[in-house]
């Protein structure tokens, strides 16, 4: 049985065999169509198998060239930043770089804290309480006087200014006028969400680690 099929295979598809003699086969497609109407042959299997291996090979070759654009190991290694809080006086804010992006570390005054807490129930575009925004990376509650936020406007990534221009005492984005309150929540303007909280952890009373 097997031998017979093999024989048929050889006769029907050999280019030099009788049906094809004196006729030029122009393409693989035409050669394949010589089988049209017949059952699946081993050659069909070979086409599909070769095609599949080729496709996987091509994808495997392309991948390194695509992946090389992702952040390199040294870029990823610079993923945490430690901040000494003792240098930041009450009411002041510093900007630190974390993963190439600025982060606000704000030492809030009692007035700013009370404004932030009072507005927990105001009408908010992206409702979130002040306490939720202070939570540390490990889920521990934060300290109300220290607010750690990513310094990029959730609209298109500009750095909002500190207080200046803000009607809510927080931050104001000079690009398209988004206005954030003392908890960094969006209150007015085009930004869709609150300023993102940077993941941070208190290492001791006077220092935090971001990232």
């Amino acid at each position: 049985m097997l031998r017979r099929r093999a024989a048929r295979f050889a006769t029907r598809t050999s280019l030099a065999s009788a049906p094809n003699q004196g006729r030029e086969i122009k393409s693989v497609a035409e050669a394949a169509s010589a089988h049209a109407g017949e059952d699946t042959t081993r050659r069909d299997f070979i086409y599909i198998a070769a095609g599949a291996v080729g496709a996987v090979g091509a994808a495997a070759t392309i991948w390194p060239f695509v992946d090389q654009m992702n952040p390199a190991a040294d870029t990823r290694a610079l993923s945490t930043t430690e901040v000494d809080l003792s240098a930041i006086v009450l009411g002041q804010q510093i900007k630190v770089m974390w993963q190439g992006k600025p982060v606000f570390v704000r030492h809030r005054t009692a007035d700013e804290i009370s404004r932030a807490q009072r507005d927990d129930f105001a009408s908010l575009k992206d409702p979130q309480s002040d306490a939720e925004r202070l939570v540390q990376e490990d889920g521990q509650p934060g300290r109300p006087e220290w607010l750690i936020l990513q310094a990029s406007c959730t609209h298109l990534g500009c750095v909002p200014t500190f207080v200046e221009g803000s009607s809510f005492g927080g931050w104001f984005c000079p690009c398209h006028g988004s206005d954030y309150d003392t908890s960094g929540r969006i209150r007015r303007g085009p930004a869709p969400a609150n300023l993102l909280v940077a993941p941070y952890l208190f290492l001791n009373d006077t220092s935090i680690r971001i990232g």
Partner: protein
Amino acid sequence: MSGPSTYEPASGFTRWLDKRLPIIRLAHDSFVAYPTPRNLNYWWTFGAMLSLCLVTQIVTGIVLAMHYIPHVDMAFASVQRIERDVPFGWLIQNIHAVGASMFFLAVYIHMFRGLYYGSYKAPREILWILGCIIYLLMVVTGFLGYTLPWGQMSFWGATVITNILGAVPLVGESIQVWIRGGGSIDQPTLNRFFSLHYLLPFVIAGVVALHVWALHEAGQNNPAGVDVKSKADTVPFTPHATIKDLFAVVLFLILFATFVFYMPNALGHADNFIPANPLQTPPEIVPEWYLLPFYAILRAFDFNIGPIDSKLAGVIGMFASIGVLFVLPWIDTSRVRSMRYRPIARQFFLIFVVVCFILGWCGGQNPGLILAKASDFTATLTYVEGGQVVTQPVTAASEAQFDDAAAAAREALTAQGATMTAVTREGATTATATGVIGGTQATRTVSGHTADEMETLIQEVKTEIGAGAAFFSVERRMPYTFTVTTLSQLATFYYFFFFLVLLPLLGLREKPGRVPDTIAKPVLTEQGAA
């Protein structure tokens, strides 16, 4: 279009070469014997200017790359060094920077030409689409190039544009990190932008070759939009088109040189002379002038459309505004090519051109800028001077019952004779109700030109009265305002309305103007002279 080759090698060498590599034949057939319609006007000379621009950008760019350093600490200084220290660096750098603007100026005229004379219609659909691809590549290349000087506008422009990609659902953030090569615009980004900025012009050159090939296969359109009927309707490319193109190029170069020598930075932004600073955003971020219309469309979407938030809607709108050009050959149902013979479409086209300029203007303005308003912003402050302040704690049984509890507390205070009451919420279920008993009630009205001005005035009044009043009740009246955003919305609407509604419908309804017999009928053939 071009018939059989008429090239005849004159010398022994050219005959020898022609049998082996018929490159002279190709050039001859493409740029010498190639038949061009007799009636082409000067709007058809921009292709030549564009070729010149591409060559200029590539040549000056290669030279600049010999001196430029793609490093965050050195890029800005290296561009300044090119301007000041490198022999003729100032000239080459200015040509490259101004050249980008000139390139876009010419390409926009070239595109409007195509739109007006229906050059995108059969059989030139592929030719048009290739042109759209070239334009897209130009936009990307221009954007990448603008990042390289590493000034404030370079840095923040790149930040805003890569953030736009972040609006794409699910994969947006990964794409953003992949493009930037890190969490933010930094050294890896600058390095790869430089590499790609060097690569893309050659890709453009490749697509331009296809564009020209497609043009020579389908043949040029012409101002009448009527197919060339016989050889009598055409003239050989050289000398007719060559000389005419050269003359137009000279005029174009005069404009080019005026910018290069007298106002090289007029088309740029002053903030790009400040080195990039990731910690400080410039007061306004605007792209280069040639991308302003698309920036206006991006910002026009300041509202959510169903599940699509405003940011994503803006991105979709912006890409759709270019994407619509790709399908234009199939959207425009009119079989008449030239708008010369489409009296109604022509008027809408002129409005379209004006709208594009309006969009460009809007893109450069602060979106909140008020252009017109129904009245001033006014606010009335009501307060009680003097009197006795009483407070009362409010405690609601649950969060849902808070409103009822607050109302009850206010009523209780009113019952005590309070003329004004207020509730300050302190927690989910707790608040303090305050009331003023006795005293004299007074009102004060302020008005300002903007909401911010009004808020400032309200603050001023509050400070002025200070402790004289326990609290204020402020009633703000916001008039209807017509802002830059509103104008961009109207213009964006017309932009899409023109392509998606007017062109498909007009093609079916409009009665074309009559084509003069001199054009419609091959007069010479009828007289048997041709």
